[in-house]
C-alpha cells in the first residue's frame, strides 16, 4: 500500500488550498479549516505539515527548520516524511529551497521572490490570553478593537521599563489585522515586513490558516515614545563570527563556560566553510 502524493488525499488538499487562497486574499485574517489527523502529535507541526502537503509539487525543493536548525529531530523527521511521500529534492540551503517549513525562525539568508515559507503555529489568536472567548475575539478582529493589546504593552513597560515580550510579538498586517507571528523571536519580526516570499501560517490543533502575501506591510506594535526594538548581542557568533544575527547560548562545560552561536545552522556552517556568506537582512 502506498500513500497519495504528499500523504493527504486530494480532496483535503483542495480544501486546505481554498483556505490558503482566502488567507492570502485577506492578509493576517485567520481562516478556519478542517484540520486532519496527521502522523505526528499536536504541537510538533501538524498545521505546518498540512499546509506544506497542500502546496508542495514534484518540482519543489524542500527545506525544514526547527529552531533555526536543519538537523534536529523535528526537522529531520518532517523532511524525511516529505522526501518519502513526495520524492521531492530536499536541501538545507535557504536560497536553493522553493518551499521552507519552519518552526520558530526565519532564515538569516534573505528570502527571495517565489519562495514559500510555512510556519508551524501553536496558538494563532493574538488576543487569546487577553480575551478567552473565541466569539469575542472574532468580533474584536471584525471591529478592529485592538486597544487591549496596547494595554498589555503598557503593562509591560510599566513593570519592566520596556516591552518584555520577546517572541510571537504582535504585529499589524497590512494596516488591518492583528496577527500572532507564530513563536518566532521578535528579532525576526522586521523580516516579515515587505518580505519578498509568501508566508503561510498553519495551526493544526486550533484549525486556523493565515498568510502574509509577498511585499505586505507588517508593523510590530509599539508606542511613539517606546519604539519597537529587536535583541542585540554584544559579541559575534562563537563559531562563524557573524554579527547582527540571532544567537543561541550554549553551556559548553560544567564550569559555566558559555558559547554564543548562530541559531541558523545553515547560515553558520556555510560561513565557517567558505568565509563570510551573504549578509543578513536587517
Amino acid at each position: 500500500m502506498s500513500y497519495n502524493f504528499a500523504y493527504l488525499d486530494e480532496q483535503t488538499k483542495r480544501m486546505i488550498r481554498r483556505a490558503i487562497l482566502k488567507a492570502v486574499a485577506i492578509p493576517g485574517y485567520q481562516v478556519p479549516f478542517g484540520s486532519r489527523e496527521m502522523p505526528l502529535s499536536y504541537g510538533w507541526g501538524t498545521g505546518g505539515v498540512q499546509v506544506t502537503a497542500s502546496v508542495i509539487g514534484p518540482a519543489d525543493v524542500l527545506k525544514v527548520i526547527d529552531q533555526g536548525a536543519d538537523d534536529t529531530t523535528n526537522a529531520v523527521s518532517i523532511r524525511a516524511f516529505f522526501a518519502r511521500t513526495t520524492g521531492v529534492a530536499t536541501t538545507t540551503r535557504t536560497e536553493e529551497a522553493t518551499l521552507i517549513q519552519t518552526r520558530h525562525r526565519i532564515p538569516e539568508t534573505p528570502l527571495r521572490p517565489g519562495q514559500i515559507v510555512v510556519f508551524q503555529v501553536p496558538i494563532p489568536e493574538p488576543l487569546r490570553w487577553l480575551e478567552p472567548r473565541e466569539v469575542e475575539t472574532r468580533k474584536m478582529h471584525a471591529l478592529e478593537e485592538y486597544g487591549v493589546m496596547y494595554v498589555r504593552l503598557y503593562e509591560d513597560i510599566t513593570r519592566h521599563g520596556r516591552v518584555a515580550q520577546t517572541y510571537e510579538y504582535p504585529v499589524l498586517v497590512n494596516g488591518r489585522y492583528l496577527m500572532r507571528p507564530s513563536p518566532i523571536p521578535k528579532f525576526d519580526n522586521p523580516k516579515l515586513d515587505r518580505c519578498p516570499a509568501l508566508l503561510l501560517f498553519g495551526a493544526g490543533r486550533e484549525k486556523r490558516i493565515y498568510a502574509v502575501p509577498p511585499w505586505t506591510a507588517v508593523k510590530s506594535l509599539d508606542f511613539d515614545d517606546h519604539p519597537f526594538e529587536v535583541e542585540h548581542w554584544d559579541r559575534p557568533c562563537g563559531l562563524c563570527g557573524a554579527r547582527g544575527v540571532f544567537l543561541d547560548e550554549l553551556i559548553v562545560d560544567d564550569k559555566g563556560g558559555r558559547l554564543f552561536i548562530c541559531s541558523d545552522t545553515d547560515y553558520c556552517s556555510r560561513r565557517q566553510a567558505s568565509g563570510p556568506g551573504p549578509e543578513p537582512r536587517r
Partner: protein
Amino acid sequence: MSAPSEERPLLGVRGLAKRYGAHVGCLDVGFDLWPGEVLGIVGESGSGKTTVLNCLSGRVAADGGRVTYVTAGGAPVDMLGLDESARRRLLRSEWGVVHQHPRDGLRMGVSAGANVGERLMALGARHYGRVRGQALDWLARVEIDQDRIDDLPETFSGGMLQRLQIARNLVTAPRLVLMDEPTGGLDVSVQARLLDLLRGLVEDLGLSAVIVTHDLAVARLLAHRLLVMRGGEIVEAGLTDQVLDDPQHPYAQLLVSSVLQP
C-alpha cells in the same frame, strides 16, 4: 440644579420593552434625558431598573421601543438599530458604563494605570508617557493616591475600586454615563465620599447621567429628576424633591415611607 438649556434632549427613550420569556423585564419605558441632567431610576429589586440600563447600553437586546441619542456631532442616532461596530465605538468614546461591582468593569489583572488608560489606547492613543500622564491626573481627580498607579486593583479597597472604575470611564470625557448602583456594597462613610466626588465630577464636566439605585438617599443627593419603577413599568416621574417629599403613586409612597430613619 441646572436647568435644561438646549432644545433637544441628549437621549430620548420611547416604549422600551424587554421580556425574559413570559416574565416582563421592562414595559413601555419612556423618558428624556437633557444635557447636563442626572436622572435617577429607583425601585425595589426586580423592578426592571437594571434591565432599562442594560437595554440602553446594548448589553441586553431590547424587544421593542426607540432609543435616540444625539451624538457630539449633533446627529441623532437610533441606538437600537445601530450596527454593532458603531454602537461599540460610541460606548467607548461618548458613553461610560459604571457597573455595580467594580470587578465587572475593571481588568483585575493589570495595573490601575493601565485600567484608566485602556479607553485612551482603544481610541488610538499611542504615546505611553501621555497615557500615563492622563492616568495620573485622573487618579488624583478621583482621590486615589498617585503612588498606587502601578498597583494591581486586587490590592485596592472596595471604595477605591469603584473610584478607579469611575476614572476609567471618565478619562475619555464621555457625554453620557450610565451607573448601576454606584454605591452598592460600600459602607456609609465611603458612600458619602463617593457621592461627594460624583456630584463634583458631574458638575465640573457637565455630564449627563442615568443612575440606577435602590437607595433613595443616593437618589436625593445626585439626581435632578427621578423615575420610580415597579414591575417593569414607570409608576411615577418628576423632580427628585417632588417625588421624594410628595409621592403620588401608592407604591412610591410605600417606597419613601419604607426608608429607615436613623
